[in-house]
């Protein structure tokens, strides 16, 4: 999804060294562009009361020696939605991101992404067998799933609740306040994928329809032009 550019990291470094005012102007323009999305995304964070009540209650155990499932607090989730205009360190593949919109709180991130992978919640542990039945007087055929019994150990990726429908109920609550929206622009070739799907920042980004992205690109172009107008020679790489 990110737009690929060349030489901007170098431009920003040079601006920081030789024209800090341009860097500030660039950050301000990018910030203005992204703030509209951030504001909209914050608006998609529901109130505590709109979700399952147990998720927003403080943890009952003060002596737990593990990290409990993060609680949701609407104010914190809204506060921690923001933007960053400083380039990131290059990842393992060598990519650096110049501008980002983040949903940094744990509760907010869960609200953002829950249901991406398993729309009905995490599966029960290992299905042992399936028995197909033919409904004699009922509505039709059905199947009975038998699962291996769950021991006390935590199994990542599986439903660890005593309630087999916990995930489903949780997601139903989330979906009632906001559906998952894919931010990938329509018309692009390829599978949209689940990683660009979310309820707050991704939804806001999708509804922005590329305006913020265009504004960021314009800010970059402006910064480059202004940098050259100041008399610096900044070699632009061929596209």
């Amino acid at each position, binding site marked *: 999804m990110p737009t690929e550019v060349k030489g901007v990291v170098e431009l920003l470094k040079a601006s920081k060294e030789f024209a800090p005012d341009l860097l500030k102007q660039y950050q301000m323009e990018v910030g203005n562009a992204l703030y509209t999305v951030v504001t909209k995304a914050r608006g998609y964070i529901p109130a505590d009361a709109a979700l399952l009540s147990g998720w927003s209650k403080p943890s009952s155990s003060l002596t737990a020696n593990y990290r409990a499932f993060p609680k949701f607090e609407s104010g914190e989730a809204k506060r921690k939605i923001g933007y960053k205009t400083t380039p990131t360190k290059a990842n393992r593949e060598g990519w650096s*991101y110049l501008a*980002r919109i983040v949903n940094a709180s744990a509760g907010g991130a869960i609200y953002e992404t829950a249901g991406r992978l398993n729309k009905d919640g995490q599966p029960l542990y290992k299905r042992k067998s399936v028995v197909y039945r033919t409904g004699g007087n009922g509505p039709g055929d059905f199947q009975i799933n038998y699962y291996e019994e769950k021991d006390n150990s935590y199994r990542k990726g599986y439903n660890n609740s005593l309630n087999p429908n916990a995930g489903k109920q949780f997601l139903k609550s989330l979906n009632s306040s906001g559906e998952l929206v894919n931010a990938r622009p329509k018309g692009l070739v390829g599978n949209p994928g689940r990683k660009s799907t979310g309820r707050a920042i991704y939804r806001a980004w999708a509804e922005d329809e590329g305006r913020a992205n265009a504004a960021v690109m314009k800010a970059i172009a402006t910064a480059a032009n202004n940098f050259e107008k100041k008399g610096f020679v900044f070699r632009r790489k061929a596209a």
Partner: protein
Amino acid sequence: MSDVSINIVSQFLGQKAFDKAGNSAHKLAGTVKRALIGVGFEEFARRSVNAFAANEKEMAGLSNTLKNLGLEMQNASVASYLDKLALATGALKSDLVPAFQTLATTTKDTADATTLLNLAMDVSAGSTNSLDTVISALTKGYKGNTGALGKLNVGIDKTMLATGDLQAIVEYLNKTFSGQSKTAAETFANRVLRIKTAVEDAQEAIGKGLVDSLTILTGSTSIDELQKKIITFGTEAGAAFRTLAGFVKENETALKNLAAILAGMFIGSKITAGIYTVIGAFKALSATMVILRNTAIGAYIAEMAVLNPLAGLAAAAGIAATIYGVIKSLDMLSTKFDKVGSQSSDMNGTAAAHLAQLNKEFGVTKKLVNYSKVLTAEELKQLAAKKLKLATDKANLALGKGADVFDLEKIQLNAAMIGQAEALGKATTSAQILAITNDVQRLKIKQDMLALEEAIASQDVARIESATKTLNADLKVLGTLQSQSFTLLGIKTTLDSIKPKALVDQENLNIALDKIREMLKMLAQLNSTTVSSKTAPSAIPVGDYVKPVVFDPTTSIDAIIEYADAATERANAFALLQEQENYAAFLSLVEFQKQLGDLGGYSSSMNSGAGYGYNANNVTVTVVDKTSGLIEVVQNAVQENNRFGNNLSYAGAI
């Protein structure tokens, strides 16, 4: 999950890319090493022989089939076609040869077989069917059984299938799938297959990085060129192998011994750094062997070749070592390795250029940062220079001050000024004063000029301006003096300025003392009168005052100051007493007025209180005729005016 983010603008940073390229090259080296070197030259040779044998077997079968079909003359062109097809599409010859053989057997015509094979390749590439399945369906269709073609699920209409018109079906397939194999051949997967075809001995899964790296490393501009280079190398190396085979046959024992030697050498060469090192090792090995050939080993081999001629190429297990041990082949291999080495040089040049480009790009920021550091260093240097200059200026100033002490010219000027001042004290006439004043002013101007020169030398703008201003003012005064348009009062400033400033100004002191005397005298006169009051008699004792003191020149300053302080305190005390007495007199006056009654009073407080208007009933107010007197005065005035002609009537009045 702690940070869900939308990444908006991304940039691929070169450093990691460069590392990645380096890693890819390293992987490539490992891959090539595993394919060609890691398994040992024996394995490399064995695979080559096996591949050669398998290919020979397939081609021999095809050749035999064509021969049986009466198409023997097409054998060479078919082989060439299949080679090119394999290279162009990445298909294995082991698949193509049987396919073509089947089609040729069915159609009994190489042209039809070629057409159908091309079509089958396109259909296979454009659908999910394997080449074998498509060939089989086409073969059956050619024989009239079009049902198999329908099972290909490539959109052939059932009506068309029912007609059994293979021509129409082929046209449809051509129209639908034309160019599919060519397109597919350009896909990444097929590029890998094409490379795999070209280097089928390697049998390694070659990734994209390997493809690109191989292309770069060999200086190839395209995959086709890379294929050609690989094939050329293989062909020429194969020729060398064939050449050496005869020698192996004749020198087995000697070569086995040599193989052991060479294996040790080979291991000892520690080939671990990939193809570059391998090529270098090849060259080193070749050079070593050339030397060996010309020395004892060469002689030994020659001897053993005569003594132990053995047959059979089956001893290919030691083929790699023997390859390099065979003297006759060594030269040929050396030549090939040299060629590869030269390509490696080209490759090194290309890679070096690429590296230089990357370094250049990555160096931009570094240069900028370094430039910033240089700027900062320059600024620091300038700052240090300024500090030094400041210190130097201060030092020069101090030196200048010190120099003044020994400046003869200044000493002379000062002496002249002092002399003029003494002369001024002795002057008795105005003319003398004027002459002295002129001289003094000239000396002063001379001093101003010196000061200005020093100021100019110091390059201190403020100091220069100040000195210039002073000089101009003094020049103006001198001009005034010389034009004689002056008064003594006008030059008083000049005279005063040249008088030496004593620590205690006697004149001022005398003036102060005179003031004190006057004050004491007034006090003495004040004390000489008696202040009488009924209620508050004067508290100042009669005759109590400080007598005026006349100081002589020997009186000390401290004594004078002490006397002045005492006189001041006393004067203040007397002033306070005087005020009290005045107030007491005022109060007694008020009392006295009260006894007299209201006489108009001196103040509001005097006319108020119990006494004021106390006898108001005794005052008789009589209203008299206030107008009679006034009328008389007016009448007299009118009469006199009329009498003296000053008629007050308006003109025309009755």
